[in-house]
């Protein structure tokens, strides 16, 4: 089995695939890549199955030495890619010879880049997934300098030198919101204002949730909501009125009312929104 040696882990680099399903009732978060289209694109570029495990970096990139020849592709947040110090392609397959160091630099826009490798990161799966879950500590720990990451056998077909469409970085994060299940805990004016007011991405955002700050969303009723199951994209309103958008490592149950749910297709952009970016909630009408 081929291996990658971690030279520089970056601020936070985790192994991620498409996450865990079917175990939320045991208290296990789904985890998985926050920017799922970027993970899928990276795997396509190196000829992997769409859900093979890759590395998810956070702002500061990663550097790895290839013990044997590997083919990698970097997608997600744009960042300079270098092999032994020489510029290499972003968003395309890159061959790395044995002994060479492949380096992903700091993101130029966005937050999370994905380094996919032909064969996938072959750490042992836990409950059907190789993803690191930072809420409950399941799956592999964030990578550290000196770690050796196993790489699976190369996929049986040749990598396709595809091009990955790169979206221009947006000036603001637009999150559509389907109201419910607890929109009735808030005054109607609060829902209208949530759609009108501007929020910003808060620095405390992480893989568990995108935290936003702005005008407080006012409740119509007081008291405690008994804990209930939570979905990806749920927008909880804690007592301080600042909306919290649940991302992949979100807890399986929660006790704050959910005013609405952001569709999964909008969450890849949320994964790439830096602190301070303006956020706009667009309330979906109808059912």
């Amino acid at each position: 089995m081929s291996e990658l040696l971690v030279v520089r882990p970056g601020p936070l680099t985790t192994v991620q695939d498409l996450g865990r399903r079917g175990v939320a009732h045991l208290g296990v978060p789904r985890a998985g890549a926050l920017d799922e289209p970027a993970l899928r694109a990276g795997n396509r570029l190196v000829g992997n199955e769409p859900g093979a495990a890759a590395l998810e970096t956070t702002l500061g990139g990663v550097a790895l030495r290839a013990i044997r020849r590997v083919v990698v592709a970097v997608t997600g947040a744009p960042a300079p890619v270098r092999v032994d110090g020489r510029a290499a392609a972003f968003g395309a397959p890159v061959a790395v010879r044995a002994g060479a160091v492949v380096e992903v630099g700091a993101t130029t826009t966005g937050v999370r880049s994905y380094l996919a490798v032909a064969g996938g990161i072959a750490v042992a799966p836990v409950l059907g997934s190789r993803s690191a879950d930072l809420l409950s500590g399941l799956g592999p720990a964030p990578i550290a300098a000196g770690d050796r990451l196993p790489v699976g056998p190369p996929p049986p077909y040749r990598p396709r030198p595809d091009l990955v469409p790169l979206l221009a970085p947006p000036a603001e994060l637009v999150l559509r919101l389907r109201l419910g299940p607890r929109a009735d805990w808030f005054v109607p004016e609060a829902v209208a204002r949530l759609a009108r007011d501007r929020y910003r991405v808060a620095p405390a955002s992480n893989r568990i949730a995108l935290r936003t700050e702005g005008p407080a969303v006012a409740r119509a009723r007081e008291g405690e909501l008994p804990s209930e199951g939570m979905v990806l994209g749920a927008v909880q309103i804690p007592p301080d009125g600042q909306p919290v958008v649940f991302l992949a490592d979100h807890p399986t149950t929660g006790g704050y009312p959910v005013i609405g749910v952001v569709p999964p297709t909008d969450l890849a952009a949320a994964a790439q929104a830096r602190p301070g970016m303006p956020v706009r909630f667009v309330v979906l009408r109808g059912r």
Partner: protein
Amino acid sequence: MTPAVRRVGESALLVEVAGPAEVAAFYGWLRERQEAGALGAVEEIVPAASTVLLDGVADVDALAALLRTARPAAADAASGPLVEVPTVYDGADLAEVAALWGVSEEAAVRIHTAPEYVVAFCGFAPGFGYLTGLPPQYEVPRRATPRSAVPAGSVALAGPYTGVYPRSSPGGWQLLGRTTLTLWDTAREPAALLAPGVRVRFTAVRGHGS
């Protein structure tokens, strides 16, 4: 009683029922239907305090219609396997709980080992089950100041629930005792010994050393 069914985003439904007993019945009914292939495609069934969430639902309209006509019986809840939890009742809060109940420590142990419990739901950490079954007059508040580290295997009380900590973690529950059972093992199926629907009995055993 007709359950209220709420839409949650594009592919999930939240079923609201009266309380933990109805949740257990509904959850048991749903799992039986799922195992029989009569529920349609659903990725997650997540019971909680007075709701059951169904997530990753392929056909939400069809499932919502089914759920609105569902009439689970209490018997659906009582079908889970029975797990015995041998417990050394020497917890740091045993005396305080006994005082809250107005009984001796020995009587407190008898009160806690008497009922058959049911795991109503999991949360807080993987494999942490919220067990119902203790009569309502024995509800106790959480500790005013949570402990920074509760040892793994601690048997504890808070509100209407009993729980067993699967691993060492911070916690504010009242500690009655401890068990050496492995509560959480990802190599086991299911990984949680106390998965929702499991029936539980606590039995008092003598400690070794400590």
